[in-house]
């Protein structure tokens, strides 16, 4: 029964993935990709990876979807959104088929990996959720560099701004009627979303959740509030927003150096301090992740002026 369910789910995932690659029109492709992300999130839940399911639904489907739809809107204004129908491309099909077949072969041919036994290490990590323990303690190095990668991507996005637009608010202007449905939605959602985002971070220590999932919820709340006209989009030059961007990496780096100073080693948390240290890092990281993700999706400052 459960294998039948997984088979149907995977057929759906493949079908929707195919639909996002075939056919005409990038708008349609973006919509299919959002649906695809939600189905993959169900797949992760079926695999028992609930943290990944949340991240996929929130980031892989939700934020990426907003990003793609906003990009389509911008390209349509620039008259670059139209797409010609492409013919079947045999060399590309051979390449894709070859890659797929070699991965399939690898699955059956390679030995089954052995998961490391964390039963002894986990009680020293300070948190009960093994995924959070890996992210913020055992492999904290990865997460530190990742938070810096996020910042680098945002700086890269900002580089695309034209000089004349540099002082403009980030992203395109949204025109929501002050008494319209979107404005009411933008007023109702933030209180609930803020509580839920903070809850996800807090819950992530022991059960499903974490800084990335919670931060994404907060970023989404901010985006909805900006689209609804409740909140003004930030500007590049505003110091408070810049401080929020670097807060997480700075606290993370600082606690890593503190670990080195205490003699435990860089990014190594002493067992007694692990739980408060992880919660502090996660809180700071959540703020930075939320702001960085929201600004990444908003895009560079754009006064809405096009050359065409």
């Amino acid at each position: 029964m459960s294998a039948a369910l997984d088979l149907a789910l995977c057929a759906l995932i493949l079908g929707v993935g195919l639909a996002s690659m075939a056919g005409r029109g990038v708008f349609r492709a973006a919509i299919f990709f959002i649906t695809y992300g939600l189905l993959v999130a169900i797949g992760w839940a079926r695999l028992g990876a609930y943290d990944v399911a949340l991240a996929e639904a929130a980031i892989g489907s939700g934020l990426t979807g907003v990003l793609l739809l906003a990009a389509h809107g911008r390209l349509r204004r620039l008259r670059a959104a139209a797409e010609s129908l492409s013919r079947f491309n045999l060399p590309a099909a051979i390449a894709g088929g070859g890659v797929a077949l070699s991965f399939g072969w690898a699955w059956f041919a390679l030995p089954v990996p052995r998961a490391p036994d964390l039963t002894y290490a986990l009680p020293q990590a300070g948190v009960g959720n093994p995924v959070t323990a890996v992210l913020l303690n055992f492999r904290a190095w990865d997460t530190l560099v990742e938070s810096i990668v996020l910042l680098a991507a945002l700086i890269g996005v900002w580089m695309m701004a034209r000089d004349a637009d540099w002082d403009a608010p980030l992203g395109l202007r949204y025109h929501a009627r002050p008494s319209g449905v979107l404005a009411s939605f933008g007023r109702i959602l933030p209180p609930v979303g803020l509580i839920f985002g903070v809850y996800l971070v807090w819950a992530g220590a022991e059960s499903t959740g974490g800084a990335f999932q919670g931060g994404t919820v907060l970023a989404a709340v901010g985006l909805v509030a900006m689209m609804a006209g409740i909140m003004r989009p930030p500007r590049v030059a505003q110091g408070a927003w810049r401080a929020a961007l670097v807060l997480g990496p700075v606290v993370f780096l600082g606690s890593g150096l503190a670990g080195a100073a205490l003699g435990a080693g860089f990014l190594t948390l002493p067992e007694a301090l692990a739980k408060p240290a992880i919660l502090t890092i996660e809180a700071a990281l959540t703020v930075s992740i939320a702001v960085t993700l929201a600004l990444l999706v908003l895009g560079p400052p754009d006064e809405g002026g096009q050359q065409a």
Partner: protein
Amino acid sequence: MADLATYILTASGLVFFIAGTVGLIRFPDTFSRLHALTKADNLGLGLIAGGVAFQTETWAQLAMLTLIWVLALLAAGTVAQLVARAALSTPEQK
């Protein structure tokens, strides 16, 4: 008893979802499609949430389920309004 209620409620929820999906595919224009989606699917979601509610073990789970349902309802209604407004301003696009 609780299982029976779950079966009946989720099954009838699925019927509404199928009806809504058929409407989405078969109806000719944006407004009638929205009609099918918002009405049939919201009712279907409510029935499924009601069915799952019989399986909850704690009040917290029930509260979260209710929250999910209310938020989905709110989002669906808002999005339907926005899509309809966008469709009004560009009548040619299907």
